[in-house]
């Protein structure tokens, strides 16, 4: 077994792998991240059978938490398997913060949080804003402190899909990209390493100041959302709201009472950026 360890925000991961190549890829992409001594979670990339270690090698994602019946991935996508494995450990096991499926960026000590279904653009928008003066805090999970309500950074590799890949390659000219992965269950995927300042600031929280629900593919618009709709959507965007019980309820109600929210529609990244800047300026 080959091993790789990485600290991302408050979580320490250990990846064990039956093959050397994915561990090398991970070590290269995460080279500026701290290495923890002890891991919170273990992810294991395993062969589905002895033959499958060598012939048409196939990676099963195993670890402290697993999803039964998940289909294995080809070895060429082992990097994706490792990232999915880490997501799974967080989604199923993390209890120290309220977890939201959302992205976040920070400016002047305040955090902008973006949440929505797959395809809404939250991941790409956070990557884009991270190149335009904002500090990237995470594209997959937003962690909310249960006592203070602060947003805690979780800046893993940014997962770009399909058309976002080209868009970000044009925007992040100094960006460090992982290999292009084709024919994955979600189409083409390419990972982008967050900017150095984002990695260095991974222990610095920020107070949430604005919540956005982006929708990609609609004419540029800003809409208000009722608090009850925000509440319901956020409970569904959280994988551990129910498990956290009272702490989850208090954290979420505090969040809704203190953070303004809007739905934004956009057709191009520049439109979204303009709407974000307009709403952010309106806050002060």
């Amino acid at each position, binding site marked *: 077994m080959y091993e790789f360890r990485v600290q991302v925000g408050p979580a320490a991961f250990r990846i064990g792998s039956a093959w050397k190549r994915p561990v090398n890829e991970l070590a290269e992409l995460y080279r500026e991240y701290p290495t923890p001594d002890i891991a919170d979670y273990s992810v294991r990339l395993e062969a589905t059978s002895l033959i499958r270690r060598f012939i048409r090698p196939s990676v099963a994602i195993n670890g402290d938490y697993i999803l039964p019946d998940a289909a294995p991935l080809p070895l060429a996508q082992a990097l994706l398997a490792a990232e999915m494995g880490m997501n799974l450990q967080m989604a199923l096991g993390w209890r120290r913060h309220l977890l939201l499926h959302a992205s976040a960026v920070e400016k002047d000590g305040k955090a902008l949080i973006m949440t929505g279904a797959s395809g809404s653009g939250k991941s790409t928008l956070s990557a884009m804003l991270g190149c335009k003066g904002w500090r990237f805090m995470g594209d997959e999970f937003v962690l909310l402190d249960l006592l203070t309500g602060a947003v805690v950074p979780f800046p893993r590799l940014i997962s770009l899909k399909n058309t976002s890949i080209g868009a970000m390659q044009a925007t992040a000219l100094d960006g460090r990209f992982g290999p292009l992965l084709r024919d994955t269950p979600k189409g083409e995927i390419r990972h982008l390493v967050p900017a150095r300042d984002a990695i260095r600031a991974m222990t610095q929280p920020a107070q949430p100041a604005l919540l956005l629900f982006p929708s990609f593919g609609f004419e540029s618009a800003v809409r208000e959302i*009722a*608090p*009850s709709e925000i509440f319901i959507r956020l409970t569904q965007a959280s994988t551990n709201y*129910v498990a956290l019980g009272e702490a989850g*309820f208090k954290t979420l109600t505090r969040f809704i009472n203190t953070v303004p929210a809007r739905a934004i529609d956009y057709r191009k990244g520049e439109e979204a950026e303009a709407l974000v800047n307009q709403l952010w300026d309106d806050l002060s």
Partner: protein
Amino acid sequence: MVLLIQPLDAMTAIYHRRSGITHIVSEPVPQILHRMGGETLTSDEIVERLRVDFDFEEIDARSLITERMDEMAALGLLVRQHV
């Protein structure tokens, strides 16, 4: 306190400590809880308390409120006592 109650807008979020479940409710559920004030009441008594503050024209108000209370009891937000 058995319930944590957070009004949102036309709907209210309620956390039920004993079950750990969050419910999102619309009228007249929060108003029923408020008017009961922790006491044990019949549905007629609750209808009368609601009439003090609110107007409702429904002829079958008692059936509607009883149905809401049945729903609340099924979820543990109210406890039914048999006399």
